[in-house]
Structure formats: structure tokens, C-alpha cells
């Protein structure tokens, strides 16, 4: 279950290019200054932005290939994406945000229960709230839960812990490590925090 990424994109005259493979049970950290293109790479991997050229494959299945004209739509890529800007559905309560993908999944595909996610994220008291009334860190935790409950085949986490306190961070990092080790999923991780990188024993891809 390796994720092979080789993408090129020109955005506002700035060239964004990345080429790497994330092995199963491995965390790859995208690292680099603000505006260098980390989010853009995740967007391309998730299928939201079309690379100018390149190839993306997951576990042998081609998700994108500019030469072969393949472009798998995002809903078939099964990428668990935690957006930098969260993107909670404002019209749905926290519970419905969390279960958005989960409800649609065949039971066999699910690999985490809502209770488990709600537990380690500490969002049990928020389930009936609308996103507009959440604090920054509360919203971030809901976004993480929503992505994990979609039973993805690989994760794309864009600064997922940026507004969380150290205690919370620790708990969530532990879960991510468990997902990596037990489910052996490839994980793409964007962060500015060297502590997180070393804690996750991540391989660092430096964008520039």
C-alpha cells in the first residue's frame, strides 16, 4: 500500500514540484516555508487540484496520470484529508459532520467507530453544536474526526494540530501512530513543528 507521488504545477508563476513515495506504515512530512506549496501538493494528491503533469498512484492503482489521461475523481481516491482551513459543513451539527462519510460506508470498510473517535478527540459534549459555535481547537478536532471516520486508505493531514494544546496533541498523535502501525496506511503530514516530526519518526520531504 505505497503512495507514489510525482506532481508538477505552476501556480501564480511559482513552480510547485514534488516527487516521493510514502511507504505503508510510514509518515512523510512535507516541510517548507509558508507559501511554498505544501497544501497544493495535498490538494493534488486528494484530487482537488489537477497537476499540470505527473502521476499519482496508490498501491499500484493509478489515481492520476497526465500522460495516460487518467484522473480519478476525489470521491474514489479514499484520501482522509484534514484541511488547513478545516471546512466543516456549517449547516450540519458536529455529529453529522463526523458521520458524513461514515454513514455512507459499507460496514466492512469502516475501521474506526464513532465512539472511539469521539473519545480520543474529546468532542462528546459538542455533538449537538453547529460549527459556528466551536472554538478554534474544537473545530480542528472535529475536522480530524470527520476525516478518520471516512475510513481512508491514506491520510493527508495539513497542520492538523496547529491550534491544539500539548495534551490533546499527544493523544491525537498517539492515535495517528496507531493507525500507521496497525492499519499500515501511508500518511502525508504537513507541519511546521520539528517536535511533531521527530515524535512521528517522519521522513521529511523539504519543498522549496
Amino acid at each position: 500500500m505505497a503512495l507514489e507521488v510525482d506532481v508538477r504545477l505552476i501556480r501564480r508563476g511559482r513552480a510547485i514540484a514534488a516527487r516521493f513515495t510514502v511507504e505503508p506504515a510510514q509518515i512523510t512530512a512535507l516541510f517548507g516555508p509558508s507559501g511554498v506549496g505544501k497544501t497544493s501538493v495535498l490538494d493534488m494528491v486528494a484530487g482537488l487540484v489537477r497537476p499540470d503533469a505527473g502521476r499519482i498512484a496508490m498501491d499500484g492503482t493509478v489515481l492520476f496520470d497526465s500522460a495516460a489521461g487518467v484522473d480519478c475523481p476525489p470521491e474514489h481516491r479514499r484520501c482522509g484529508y484534514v484541511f488547513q482551513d478545516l471546512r466543516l459543513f456549517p449547516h450540519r451539527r458536529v455529529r453529522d459532520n463526523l458521520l458524513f462519510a461514515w454513514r455512507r460506508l459499507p460496514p466492512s470498510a469502516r475501521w474506526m467507530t464513532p465512539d472511539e473517535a469521539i473519545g480520543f478527540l474529546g468532542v462528546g459534549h459538542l455533538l449537538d453544536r453547529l460549527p459556528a459555535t466551536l472554538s478554534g481547537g474544537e473545530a480542528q478536532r472535529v475536522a480530524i474526526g470527520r476525516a478518520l471516520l471516512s475510513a481512508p486508505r491514506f491520510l493527508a493531514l495539513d497542520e492538523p494540530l496547529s491550534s491544539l494544546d500539548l495534551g490533546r496533541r499527544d493523544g491525537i498523535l498517539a492515535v495517528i501512530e496507531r493507525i500507521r502501525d496497525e492499519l499500515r496506511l501511508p500518511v502525508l503530514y504537513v507541519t511546521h513543528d520539528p517536535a511533531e516530526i521527530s515524535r512521528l519518526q517522519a521522513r521529511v520531504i523539504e519543498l522549496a
Partner: protein
Amino acid sequence: MLSSEEWGIVALSLKVSLVAILLTLPIAYGLAWQLARGRFPGKVLLDALVHLPLVVPPVVTGWLLLILFGANGPVGRWLEAAFGITVMFRWTGAALASAIMALPLMVRAMRLSIEGVDRRLEAAARTLGAGPWQTFRSVSLPLSLPGVLAGAVLGFARSLGEFGATITFVSNIPGETRTLPLAIYAALQLPGGDAMVARLAGISIALSLLALILSESLARRGHRHAGGGDGA
């Protein structure tokens, strides 16, 4: 309160307006979606076409409907031959006229809301496994609901007040096409009819007030969910 004749008129008006709006709602939404999101040649033309019933005086719209849907018109003949349907001089014709007059208002309101939908949220739904249709149903449509509601209210109100196209197309037939506005018009033609005009106008105002209160309470429920406007 109301005489049985007035009840009949009110019931007919409500039937005509409700049928007109319910049938038009999905069409209007589809058009609004295309105008908001679509990129195709002739988009401005479609836009103009949708606005036409607003710009052209109602009587002319009624006249065009007459030419098209009359028993001697191309569409009317085909409807008659293929399905045995006649709309001319029928309440269905009144609903058709109302629907066409209401369409531009509905499309505009819906389009405004669709244009306000944050497409990043749609992208998020896609990554969560929702296909284009599911994304539409669970994200885009509910987020544009204020526009659907506003459009429905506008359209319903416009339908309740529709006069020119209706009388030109399906005439003023008691019990079949004589809606409130047509009854008011008839009363206006009578030199001593002011009291009846006032009474009928009062009824249509009361009806619209009821519709408004209903829609406002629906909107209040819907709006809390729509976010955006609700800051800290």
C-alpha cells in the same frame, strides 16, 4: 367570514399558485444552477430568455402562450393529440401562466444563493466519498436553501397576484380560471364595486401575510443552520 363563492376563489387561487410553484421549483433550480455554475455558449441568451416574462408585459406573455398553447397552436395541438391535455381555459393553463411569470423571480433568488455557496465545502465532501450528486444533495442544495425559500416565496406571491397573462391566456372563467386578481379586476370594472374590491384585496393580502409568516418561520429554522451570517 368568507362567502362560499369567495372560498371557491381563494381555493382556486391557492391551487393554481401552489401547483405553479411546486412544478416550477425544480426547473427554476436547474436553470439557476446552470446560470450560476455552467459555462456554455449562449449562457447570456438563456439568461435573457429566463428574464423575458419579467420584461415583456404580462399581456404579451399571455398572448404568446395563447399562440403556442391554444388549441390551434403548435404545442397545444401536440399536447391534445399526444396526451389529450388541454390547458386553454383550464385552471392548468392559469397555473402555466403563473409559473412562467414567476420563473424569473425564482431563478434569480436561487442563483444568488448558489453563487454564495463555498465551493471549498463541496471539495471537502468529495474527498469524503460523496459523488457529485451526493455532494449536491448534502452540501450545495442545503447551503443554497435560503435562496430556494426566497424564490418560492417570491414566486408564490407573484403567482397570487398574476393577472395579465392569465386573463389573456385562459380568460376569466368563474370556478375554472377566475383567480383572486381576476375577480378583483372584474369588481373594479363595476362602478359600485369598490367595497368588493377592498374585500377581495383584503383576502389576497391576508393570504400573502400567511404565506410570509410561514416562510419566515421556515427560514428561521433553516437559517440557524446556514452559518456564514452567524458570527461570534
